[in-house]
């Protein structure tokens, strides 16, 4: 047993006798988990579907549409940001492209609304290929830079190319159902958005459980390592970026059909992108429903700030502060952080020691290993800690 000689850091379940691999206890627990999950999903779906009947007035219904739109967009965002850990601040621009694409295909090419929506999403997906190529070919920072630049350049182009886009005069999107009264219009689009959200969540879930998803998560954990295990990281990143762009464009296009008016300033806004990031981070990027919860929280939070501090810029201050706090203290998300806090207060059946050991290990690697491991030349000083340990053990 390799672990036998390292009693201080071994997890609680070291002894081979106590943990048969697929024991009856584990199986039973898994079944119970599965039931809880299914029940939760059904309840969630029921709540979402029942909302329009419960909404007291069209305004609440329209607010529901807005929140669902946010949920669709931030779920789409998390295809990239959640799976691979590449953070895009420019997804607002992809949604804007979807919106304008849909609108232009309806008004200029005369396509039926929902055909236009699908074609626009495909076009945006196609455009995402060269963008992704430039952004993902090199690691890290350049992706964020490109994502921000994307918003800024599209704003310029859509403002300036007035003959096509209407420029700052805006673009009016014809209603797909011109005969519907406004509350009915909201209701129909509420269900459309709910359907799109379900589709996005389904895609998320399928990727999450697939080999592709495992590869993406490996990229998030350690891209070099994933590459060294044979994962074609660039291709994986590009594909998932394109999928994300397509869903984002669908969300943006559907929004355009619902909202009816497009203006470059609002479609290509850097703040939209940052709200999406905030939502996803708040809810937790590793969870299927994280972005959805984040959308609820941020959507309601924005309303609150508007009501409380309506005539100031304090909503910006709050957004900035919240984002900074999340990044500094809860990079895995606020709800997961609360969840694990609750978990820790329960009677401990997972040993506390395990967590502590993990933290120790994390610190050790972060302090010594991680930077050194990236350095090409044999690192000396930074690995001194590990060396000391190894000499000690050899002695």
């Amino acid at each position, binding site marked *: 047993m390799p672990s036998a000689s390292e009693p201080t850091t071994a997890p609680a*379940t070291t002894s081979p006798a106590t943990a048969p*691999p697929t024991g009856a206890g584990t199986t039973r627990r898994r079944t119970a988990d599965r039931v809880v999950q299914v029940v939760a999903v059904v309840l969630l779906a029921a709540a979402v579907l029942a909302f329009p009947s419960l909404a007291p007035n069209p305004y609440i219904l329209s607010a529901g549409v807005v929140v669902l739109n946010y949920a669709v967009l931030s779920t789409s965002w998390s295809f990239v940001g959640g799976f691979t850990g590449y953070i895009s601040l420019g997804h607002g621009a992809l949604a804007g492209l979807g919106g304008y694409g849909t609108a232009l295909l309806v008004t200029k090419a005369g396509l039926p609304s929902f055909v236009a929506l699908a074609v626009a999403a495909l076009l945006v997906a196609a455009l995402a290929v060269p963008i992704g190529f430039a952004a993902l070919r090199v690691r890290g920072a350049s992706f964020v830079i490109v994502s921000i630049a994307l918003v800024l350049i599209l704003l310029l182009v859509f403002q300036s190319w007035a003959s096509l886009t209407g420029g700052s005069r805006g673009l009016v999107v014809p209603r797909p159902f011109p005969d519907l009264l406004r509350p009915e219009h909201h209701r129909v689009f509420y269900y459309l958005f709910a359907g799109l959200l379900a589709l996005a969540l389904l895609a998320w879930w399928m990727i999450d*459980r697939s*080999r592709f998803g495992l590869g993406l998560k490996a990229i998030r954990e350690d891209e070099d390592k*994933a*590459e*060294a*295990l044979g994962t074609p990281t660039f291709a994986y990143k590009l594909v998932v970026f394109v999928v994300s762009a397509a869903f984002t464009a669908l969300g943006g296009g559907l929004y355009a059909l619902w909202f009816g008016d497009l203006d470059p300033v609002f479609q290509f806004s850097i703040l939209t992108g940052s709200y999406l990031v905030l939502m996803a981070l708040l809810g937790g990027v590793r969870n299927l429903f994280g972005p959805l919860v984040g959308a609820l929280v941020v959507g309601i939070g924005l309303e609150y700030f508007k009501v409380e501090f309506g005539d100031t810029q304090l909503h910006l201050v709050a957004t900035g502060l919240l984002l900074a706090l999340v990044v500094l203290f809860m990079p895995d998300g606020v709800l997961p952080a609360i969840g694990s806090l609750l978990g820790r207060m329960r009677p401990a059946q997972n040993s506390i020691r395990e967590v502590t050991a993990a933290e120790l290990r994390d610190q050790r690697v972060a302090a010594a290993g991680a930077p050194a491991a990236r350095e090409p030349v044999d690192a000396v000083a930074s690995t001194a800690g*590990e060396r000391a340990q190894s000499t000690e053990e*050899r002695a």
Partner: protein
Amino acid sequence: MSERSEVPSLATDGLTKAFGGVVALDGATVEFRHGQVNALIGPNGSGKTTFFNCVTGMIRPDGGQVTYQGRDITGAAPHRIVRAGLGRTFQLCRVFPRMTALDNVLAAVRPVGLTGLLRGAHVRADLDRARGWLTRLGIEHLADVEARNMSWGQQKLLELAGVLMSDPETVLLDEPAGGVNPALLDRIGTLVRELNAEGRTFVIVEHNMDLVMSVSDHIVVFDRGRPIAEGPPSLIRSDERVLGAYLGV
């Protein structure tokens, strides 16, 4: 340990790499033999890890050529090199910290085609194989534990399990003995010999002379970015150049 073959498995010709003003590899020409346990030793900063990184495509060499089983793989993407049959571990063991041991190993599965990509990551056949490797390395009981919650030694074994899952003909180990206790060290030594007997070629960068001398068939000694000596352990042990460069005597 009789030599099974004289065919070079992995070979480099005049490999050069500099970082700024620091020359890490200075025209390194090396041959490792198929079916053997090769070791690569040398003092700190002699370019061993850079050599590994160039060979596995993690960094692009400034000059020179890398061939594997006669094929030129210079500058190929790392995942292509892995698919050619060359797997590696890292100097400071690298696992995916927030993934379970099982997923760490499954990440090395090579999906074929779109359907292969979209198949569940936990299909029976893969699971069996992954558990098989975990069992062989003695960490099966940790299958559902996240890697970050494992001890250093367990992580080292896990990393090796992942590499083996990708079924490489040649395995490059970067300091397998680094930071592990004597019991584990023995175990790793035995494993390497066993796996070698099953037909896998090894190239090992290592400081621990006991391990090197006990497992390797063939040793290459690096100093200042190029090989200065090579041969079987018995020869290397008595080579004065090696003593001079490596042992600092």
